[in-house]
């Protein structure tokens, strides 16, 4: 349909529209017009992505200032779906006669997901694919390979790209990741470099958060993005964690050992080069005197070795003299690694600030802060000078260098934590040195600064004020939309007790209590019995899921489940889990029915939809709190308390609830879809917990359904399923489904209201003005509006009364 939003014609690729989509688009438009950031929460499954894309594309195409869209999502499945959504939208626009001409939209993902090279693409690990690709496509390899064909293997897909004109490597249109791969295969060009090189020319680019937030990739990929771009973070409920992750680094013992080996290898190489081609090293030295930035001018093929710090924090000055020479730098690295190794021998937990770490470092090794800051980039320069291949071997060394750079660059909002043991009960030390970022606003700050409009949106982003607080930005619009339903399409239930009235909870103290485990199990059995097709269950952690699954098996609970449905479980291996998911979907489709057990915050909980028959019920076993014993989490909570006045408990509950809501929201897509949502934990019954769920879920939890025992809940579920299976006319419009007329009606109403409000405002203002005038004119007809006259009334107020008003309630 086509409708007008103010002066903007919006093409929406469906005949109908949900009211929440309308409000969402209206608010988005306001934000874009105003040129600011916004936080929008829209119920899961109500077509957020399509609303977003159709409004922004309409906006981009209608207004002459061609703004770009940078759309960030979490996972590859979501990116692929967004691309498909965009592709369909553009097809629809073409059908409707919109002339979008040279409109291009692409999605970027890693080489590992895009590579077509017959050998390299077989590698499973992204790191190795990157490194092997670099060997085939780096500037020096190409140079050598081209001047002397056959001397060095090159990638034909990459070479083929040179035959295309810059900025026109791929015909206009929208390509999903699979489309690009297919295109690359047909034409014999490299999909990855096609996308990379086309980035500045694209109208829409869709990629994951990291490409914009993580300095290690953002610098290379997103530097050229125009400042006018509209940035969207979809599924942004986890954005703070991505921010933190992208500026944190963890080192382990094996990594240090591997780094030490790398240093030795490199020093051998230096010695070798010195004998054969000493000129090279001297050239490098000269360049380094001039400054690192020039030495490392951005090169697309080197994106696996970039600085881990944000660009504004990067130094644009000459490299300190003591690491300019290759041998000196190697010695420097060796010392640094040795120091870290020594630190790791300590068998008690250490938490220190970067400053204290640096002071101690200096005391012991005489390594100063300034050269350490350059470590990562100096290493990059060295690697390039030496023309090293297979750089994945030196991965650990890179990490160590990055660690050094980060430690030396950042002071505030960071903490170093050394944990000698993995768990409290472990006896064998397995030390990890965490350099952890505590302040998510650091990583995202450049984005807010650079781009005028940043949209942060998700199905579960309540409470809305949390994100502006922890990410330190000021939104123009903050909005959460309720879900309009013509019938209650989902039934949230809180099960607090088993049929035997034993309270259930995933609280650490009771979670392994056999009664609790059994009661959790009987919920699963009864649900498997009652609910048709797919049932998804989420656990608070991998550890808990893995232990409860074996316990259930031994209790015979899984045998019961098998009687009704097939059983699939998420495993550590992503591909294995994908296969399990595929089988799960097949079982849901052929009527066999299946249960999927997975973990909140895990792989499956993000990006996989369990809509329609793929998820008729979702069970949340316990509350997905983070591991509260984690020292990093504790440090973060402390930081939040000190800097943002967010109470520990509030944050923990907020965090758990957003993940719970995220899991539960996976079951809905569209308003004809229906499903059960089961929250199985007695703590969900408490108002303070539930209040942190998104409004659109919380509004449907009735008091009666918030404290159920298993048997009652199952009876309710049966009733619900019977009711929802009755034929229902989904085509009725007006309430939860709007036609064009409904939109126009609404717009008219809005307009009237606005006019009325305006006139009221004008009236009152006008009166005030009139009053002033009247006063000036000395014509006091309307005495009741006289300000002084009104104030006189206040004068007559009793002082005692005023005093009483001031007194706080407690007294």
């Amino acid at each position, binding site marked *: 349909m086509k409708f007008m939003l103010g002066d903007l014609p919006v093409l929406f690729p469906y005949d109908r529209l949900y009211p929440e989509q309308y409000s969402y688009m209206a608010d988005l438009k306001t934000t874009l017009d105003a040129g600011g950031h916004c936080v929008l929460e829209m119920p899961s499954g109500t077509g957020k992505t399509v609303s977003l894309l159709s409004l922004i594309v309409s906006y981009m195409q209608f207004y002459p200032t061609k703004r770009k869209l940078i759309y960030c999502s979490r996972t590859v499945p979501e990116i692929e779906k967004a691309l498909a959504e965009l592709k369909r939208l553009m097809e629809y626009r073409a059908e409707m006669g919109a002339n979008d001409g040279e409109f291009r939209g692409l999605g970027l993902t890693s080489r590992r997901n895009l590579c077509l090279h017959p050998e390299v693409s077989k590698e499973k690990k992204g790191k190795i694919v990157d490194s092997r690709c670099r060997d085939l496509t780096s500037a020096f390899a190409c140079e050598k390979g081209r001047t002397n064909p056959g001397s060095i293997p090159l990638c034909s897909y990459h070479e083929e790209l040179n035959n295309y004109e810059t900025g026109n490597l791929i015909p206009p249109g929208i390509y999903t990741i699979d489309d690009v791969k297919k295109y690359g295969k047909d034409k014999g060009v490299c999909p990855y470099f096609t996308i990379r090189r086309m980035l500045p020319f694209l109208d829409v680019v869709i990629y994951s958060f990291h490409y914009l937030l993580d300095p290690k990739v953002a610098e290379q990929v997103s530097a050229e993005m125009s400042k006018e771009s509209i940035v969207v973070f979809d599924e942004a409920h986890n954005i703070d964690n991505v921010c933190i992750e992208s500026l944190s680094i963890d080192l382990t013992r094996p990594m240090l050992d591997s780094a030490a080996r790398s240093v030795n290898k490199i020093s051998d190489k230096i010695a070798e080069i010195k004998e054969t081609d000493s000129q090279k090293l001297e050239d490098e030295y000269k360049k380094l005197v001039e400054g690192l930035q020039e030495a490392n001018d951005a090169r697309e093929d080197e994106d696996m070795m970039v600085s881990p710090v944000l660009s504004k924090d990067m130094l644009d000055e000459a490299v300190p003299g003591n690491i300019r020479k290759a041998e000196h730098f190697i010695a420097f690295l060796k010392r640094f690694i040795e120091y870290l190794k020594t630190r790791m021998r300590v068998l008690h937990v250490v938490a220190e600030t970067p400053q204290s770490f640096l002071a101690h470092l200096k005391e012991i090794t005489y390594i100063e802060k300034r050269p350490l800051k350059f470590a990562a980039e100096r290493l990059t320069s060295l690697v390039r000078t030496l023309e090293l291949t297979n750089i994945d071997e030196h991965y650990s060394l890179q990490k160590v260098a990055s660690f050094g750079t980060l430690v030396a660059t950042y002071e505030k909002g960071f903490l170093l934590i050394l944990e000698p043991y993995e768990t409290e009960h472990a006896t064998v030390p397995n030390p990890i040195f965490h350099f952890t970022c505590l302040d998510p606003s650091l990583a995202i700050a450049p984005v807010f600064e650079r781009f005028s409009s940043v949209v942060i949106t998700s199905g579960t982003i309540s409470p809305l004020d949390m994100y502006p607080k922890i990410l330190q930005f000021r939104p123009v619009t903050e909005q959460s939309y309720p879900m309009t339903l013509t019938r209650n399409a989902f039934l949230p239930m809180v099960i607090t007790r088993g049929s035997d009235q034993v309270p259930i909870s995933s609280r650490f103290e009771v979670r392994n209590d056999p009664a609790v485990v059994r009661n959790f199990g009987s919920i699963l059995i009864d649900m498997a019995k009652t609910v048709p097709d797919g049932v998804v269950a989420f656990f608070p952690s991998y550890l808990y899921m893995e232990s409860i699954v074996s316990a259930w098996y031994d209790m015979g609970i899984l045998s019961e489940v098998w009687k009704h449905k097939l059983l*699939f479980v998420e*495993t550590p291996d992503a591909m294995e889990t*994908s296969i399990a998911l595929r089988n799960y979907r097949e079982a849901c489709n052929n009527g066999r029915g299946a249960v999927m057990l997975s973990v909140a915050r895990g792989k499956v909980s993000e*990006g996989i939809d369990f809509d329609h028959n793929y998820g008729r019920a979702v069970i949340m076993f316990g509350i997905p709190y983070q591991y509260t014993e984690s020292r990093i989490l504790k440090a973060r909570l402390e930081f939040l308390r000190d800097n943002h006045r967010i109470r520990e408990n509030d944050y923990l509950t907020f965090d758990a609830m957003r993940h719970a809501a995220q899991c539960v929201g996976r079951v809905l897509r569209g308003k004809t879809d229906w499903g059960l949502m089961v929250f199985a934990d007695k703590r969900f019954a408490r108002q303070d917990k539930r209040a942190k769920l998104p409004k659109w879920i919380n509004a449907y939890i009735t008091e009666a359904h918030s404290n159920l025992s298993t048997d009652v809940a199952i009876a309710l579920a049966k009733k619900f399923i019977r009711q929802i299976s009755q034929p229902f006319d989904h085509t009725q419009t007006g309430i939860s489904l709007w036609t064009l007329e409904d939109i126009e009606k609404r717009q008219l109403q809005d307009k009237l209201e606005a006019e009325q409000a305006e006139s009221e405002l004008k009236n009152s203002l006008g009166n005030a003005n009139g009053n002033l005038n009247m006063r000036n004119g000395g014509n006091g007809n309307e005495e009741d509006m006289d300000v002084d006259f009104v104030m006189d009334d206040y004068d007559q107020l009793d002082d005692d009364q005023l005093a009483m008003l001031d007194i706080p309630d407690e007294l």
Partner: protein
Amino acid sequence: MAGETSSVRRFDVDFKKIPGTISVTSTHIAWVPKEPGAMDRQNQAMERAVNMLASKAGSKQISLKILFRDDIPSNGLLFVFSNAQTREDDRKSVQDILIPFVAANKNPQPAGGQPHTSINGTTSETITPSTSAAQAVLQAKGKRKLDEMADISSPSTPNNSNTPGGTILSPAAKAQRKREYKLRQKVLEKNPTLRMLHRELVIGKQITEEEFWDGRESLIQAEEMAYAQKPGRASRLLDDRFDLDAGRKGKGTGGTGVGIKQNDNGPIILKLSKELTREIFEEFPVVQDAYAKYVPGISETEFWSRYFTSQLWERHRASVRKSAVDESARKKDDIFDQYLEEPDWNMQPRQTLPDDVERFLDLAATEEDHGESITVRDVTMQAGRERSALPLIRRFNDHSKKLLRANDSNRDQSLLMDSPYGSGIDLYNEIDLADLHGPAQDTTITLDVQEAGDMADKQGQDGDGGVLPGKTEEELHTIASKSTAILSNFNPDFGAVCLPNPGFHTTNPDGTASEEMNPAYEAFAEQRDAQAAAYHVIKDLHSRANAEVAVNIPIPEQLNEQMKSCHNAATEFLRQYWSAILPSQSQLNSSNIHQSKENKAIKMAGYLKLTENKVKAIIETSVIMGFDPERVKKAMAPTVGAVQIALAREAKRTKKV
């Protein structure tokens, strides 16, 4: 036998205890009573003889029962050879003549009278009908044990069906018959109404078994399909089913202890059925491997007992808990220990996985979407830390997958590994919000109107549409405003509808009642009477309407039974009749079938003609019983109506012919 074609052979034979002569020609078999008029003559074409059954050798009577196609006459003809001297030879001769016919007719080459045979159509007989017929002849001739022939075709005489020994039916056909009979019986068992009908019509010998089932193939087919459905694999894990702890802990534990017996304190006895071993082999191919290698060497019992005490078995059990026997305590076993391998508990599964899945399910792609995460997740969120649980989880997934595939084992495995470059449409499906689409366009069927174009043109000329064609806007406005005016000025005038009672007498001006009648009262009275009349009419209507829904006295049981039976029979005859009249879907041009259909139609029409009398009889009964015959008539009216329609149709049809 060719030489005997012209000749007629006669034998002394009793039929239904009435002495007569049977004459056998090359085309017909006929029986004529010795006393004329004592009994109907019997004459049947040889082509219709499908089976013959002889009494046992040495039994008192030397009889031969000949069954004909479609079971007409019902249950065949039973002839008892009466010539004391030659009766055995007589029978032999008759049989010799009949054998080739029977053999040829019995094989169901034309689906004519036995359409149901196509359901189970065993290939062997349909492919080579001639050879099997010849075989049957040979068999019968060679054996000459005709007395051992068994009746299997007639379900109404099931007692005979078990008679052992040779038969002129080929074994396949025999099995086929048997199966069909069973199926029919099952259908009847499941369907009480049908059983009643069957009892009435077939056992009551109104129509034959074959006729009855004709047109009900789908029922048998459905039954057969249900019957043929095999139970699938049990869905629980294999080892869970003979969990050794099961016996001890009772029902509380997971294992059901299938195949397990345990004496109070004695050793555990495992009963290994074929099924069980097959499943073990399926689940653990290594066991099959070991079995193939060693079993001729060691006994089967030893093999299994060693397996169940080996460490391998311990590994194969999905449980992570230790069983009563500690692993180290388990004996070393040179056969099974070599199959021991590290449990599959590493992050990466041992099993090789396909490279790609559908992009929207691809979790690995997300993991490798951007540089590897350089932070470590906390302990609780590290997947696969509980190493012992991992092989278990893998087995669950694997088991579920096997169960999923068990049903469509013929499905190509490679189909699952199809390329990721699926069509984009699939992905659109994933993102589509179905309810946002407008209601689907009505699928209209265009009427095939002759000269539709002209009509459309005419319509176009007639007027230019709108509410009132041919009126101008202004006229419409005036009409509208007029109507509005009328509505707004509407004033109810109740006096015009109902007169008030002015009183009987006119009132004089002085206030006393005058003698003469008030003229206004006259009008009032008239109206009042009319009202009263209307009231009565309405009341009458009302009571009559009520009477219709009033509960009638139930029809007496006996009468009801009769009515039901009459109705059922009529319906069945109607069904048969119409199915015979209407063209069948297959084999439209087969003259043979056409003929048999024709016969059937005529026969059914004959039955139908009797219906009216039957109904009359019932009505009479009702009169005798003192029950309202009208109601019976009414109840039977639809049946009678349907019969009449069929008969009218039949009359027309036969006239045409």
